[in-house]
């Protein structure tokens, strides 16, 4: 079954503008939402040039490893700010059409893979089997009106690259929003053998917590709703649905006799209240997709906050006991995020 790609008006205009400015050699990332049948490109953002250069490089056909890394790092930073439901879909390139097919495909695949890998580092969750592993490279040709989308299946490198039609659409229909305010209280023991007592490895301890979140049950606007039912069904035309999460029933393992008591060298405690949100395109989203997107946002929010603390520590070279306070009051998180309603306003 072919997946169709839809590019929003805003992104289309943005890319045409870049092309008109003759910014050949410009690279950037594409953001949007992947649904069962379609991928929506909602936003495009140009990767800032390295070394504060004014213009793109002279020979824009070449793209070396350090360029790929640069774009990937941009993608990673942007991914941190995305609300639930919105992903980094791939990259765009503004190039004259002079690259040979083989060169192009080779570089593009590397690019798509590197970007996805960088963004995946920020995740405590994995895609499910039925979610597509297709990521795209969108080429904007400087000497034609065309925009060529090539899709790469990152799980199966042998799959032929798909050349796709990219339909454009205004994407101004209101998005459905789900929100939750969630309590976090996680103890992460750090093994005695850990090389550095307080580093990114410690955050692996969040994995158990992440699993618990992905499995917990939910209520939408105070009601139980079947996973396969439509999110918008039965409720008034409210744009935002409030979600409640309830701990999953814990399996009591037969034959388990003692408590787990393990030694540790230190511990990391993550505690507080976090506000999370996910956007779903259109009016036909299913409850299970909305919940999955929101849960992933919960994981992202907490994980990224923790990561920022660690990075903070490295920069400040703090030694010993570190107590770092990140203010995550209800409105604050929203401010840091790309507001999609603001985006569509720009598009119009």
């Amino acid at each position, binding site marked *: 079954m072919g997946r169709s790609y839809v590019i929003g008006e805003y992104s289309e205009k943005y890319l045409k503008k870049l092309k008109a400015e003759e910014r050949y050699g410009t690279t950037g990332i594409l953001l949007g939402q992947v649904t069962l049948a379609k991928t929506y490109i909602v936003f495009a953002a140009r990767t800032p040039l390295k070394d504060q250069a004014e213009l793109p490089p002279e020979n824009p056909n070449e793209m070396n490893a350090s360029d790929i890394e640069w774009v990937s790092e941009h993608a990673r930073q942007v991914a941190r700010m995305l609300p639930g439901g919105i992903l980094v879909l791939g990259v765009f390139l503004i190039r004259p059409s002079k690259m040979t097919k083989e060169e192009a495909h080779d570089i593009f695949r590397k690019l798509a893979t590197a970007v996805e890998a960088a963004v995946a580092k920020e995740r405590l969750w994995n895609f499910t089997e039925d979610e597509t592993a297709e990521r795209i490279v969108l080429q904007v040709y400087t000497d034609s009106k065309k925009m060529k989308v090539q899709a790469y299946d990152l799980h199966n490198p042998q799959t032929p690259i798909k050349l796709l039609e990219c339909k454009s659409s205004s994407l101004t229909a209101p998005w459905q929003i789900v929100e*939750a*305010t*969630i*309590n*976090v209280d996680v*103890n992460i*023991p*750090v093994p005695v053998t850990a090389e550095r*007592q*307080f580093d990114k490895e410690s955050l692996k301890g969040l994995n158990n917590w992440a699993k618990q*979140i992905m499995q*917990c*049950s939910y*209520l939408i606007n*105070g*009601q*139980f709703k079947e996973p396969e039912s439509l999110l918008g069904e039965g409720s008034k035309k409210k744009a935002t649905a409030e*979600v*409640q*999460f*309830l*701990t999953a*029933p*814990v*399996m*009591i393992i037969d034959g*388990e*006799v*003692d*408590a*787990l*008591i*393990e*030694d*540790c*060298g*230190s*511990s*990391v*405690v*993550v*505690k*507080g*209240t*976090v506000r999370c949100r996910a956007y779903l395109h259109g009016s036909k989203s299913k409850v299970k997709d909305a919940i999955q997107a929101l849960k992933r946002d919960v994981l992202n929010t*907490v994980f990224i*906050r*923790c990561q920022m*603390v660690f990075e903070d520590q490295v920069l400040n070279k703090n030694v*010993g*006991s*570190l*107590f*770092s*306070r*990140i*203010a*995550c*009051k*209800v409105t604050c998180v929203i401010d840091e995020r790309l507001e999609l309603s603001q985006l569509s306003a720009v598009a119009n």
Partner: protein
Amino acid sequence: MVPLDSEDYLIRIRGGLSLDGILRKTDEKGIKDGFSDAMKDLMKKVNSQSFVLFGWESSLYIWPKSGFNTQPTELQANSSCKSLVKLIPIEVNDYLKKISKKKSVKVEPLKVINLELLFELTRPDVIETVTVHNDQKSRIHFKLTLPVDVVIFAHPDDQWIKTQEKIVEAVSEQLLGMDQCIQKYTKGKNVPIPQAFHFELPESTILTTAIYPAGYKEKDLEPQRKELHDKLGLGDKPYLRRPMSYDFPNDDLLNKYVKTVHKYIPIPSTEEFEVYVVHGSYTFHHYLQDDINDSGWGCAYRSLQTIISWFNCQGYIDIPIPTHETIQKMLVTAGDKGPSIVGSTDWIGSFEIRSILNLLGITSKIISIRSGSEFALSARELVQHFEVQGTPVMVGGEPLAHTLLGVAWNEETGAVKFLILDAHYSGEDDWANIVERAIDWKDEDFWDQMEPYNICLPQRPQGI
């Protein structure tokens, strides 16, 4: 005992509640204190707005503290417990309704409402800023899932609000009991998981819950049982051994065999008789059961199976119910019979039963009765047996063997009745048929007046 005709609902609340924490101290006391503190936090959570009850297989979620629930039109503030059963499928053994009312005591199958314990992750009582804190002094991480299992009884007309409060109290109480178990049984870095068991007691119409540490043998828990017996005035017959815990309706439905069938028939009038019956539970074994065709020769084997089931149910042994062939092999091991018995249809009697019980560490007494007409003379001894030992008895005659589960005795007139479980029953394992045809109080003329009998009286091991 829980009345067989009770109108009450049994509300059962279960869930795995997590204790997870970090300690700075590594000694036993540090660990015990750590668990105690964690338990106190858990109790606070249970009494907070984030504690949620969920009806199994329903769409009903209830917040006991705030009174909110997901089906407010059906379950309102002043609703009675009756409203619950309209929203949550009940656990019940409907087969009991098929027992013939002519022969049985009044039976109203017990209705169980199953609830699950959850915590809401999204309704904080307090909104706190997110902090990420590194503690360099942490030395131990502990993690334990408490298998909470609470039962309370409620009348259908009871106010749901009041019942809700009772549930929260009962859960808190169980957590306290579980903490006591941890404090008592933790040794060094070994912290056993506390487990809840529910028991029927003679003077109570509700269930009594005891909390025991996992991983301990029955005999090692005897001191704790003795304490409980003293506290509850229970005497020296066992009531609180873990295998004796109460069978809920689904347990009965899942069990291959029918348990403790004599409780469904009335006892002889206590104005005329003193009645003594078997103590505790057993499963009923009979001809043709388990697709083994032993019709005409297997009755003593079946009686032995019932006796062995009694020792299993009370937790004195733990073996699968032996087949006829296994029993025969055991006789060869015991030196009682030659190998040719294995695979044969040979009869066995009280002496063989005694040998096999011996192999399992169980002693027995044998009474020999010269002829059936003299059965009543042994009344006193049988009364004593059921009063003190309380085990099922095998009565072996030529050619029939029967399982004797109790006697009713009029000391003045000397009249005796016998509670007989018929090993020759060859029908289905369902309550209606078994109560109808396989269990009965018989008169003295039940025995063949001319034939001799050997009665095997298994002895209950010492202790409770």
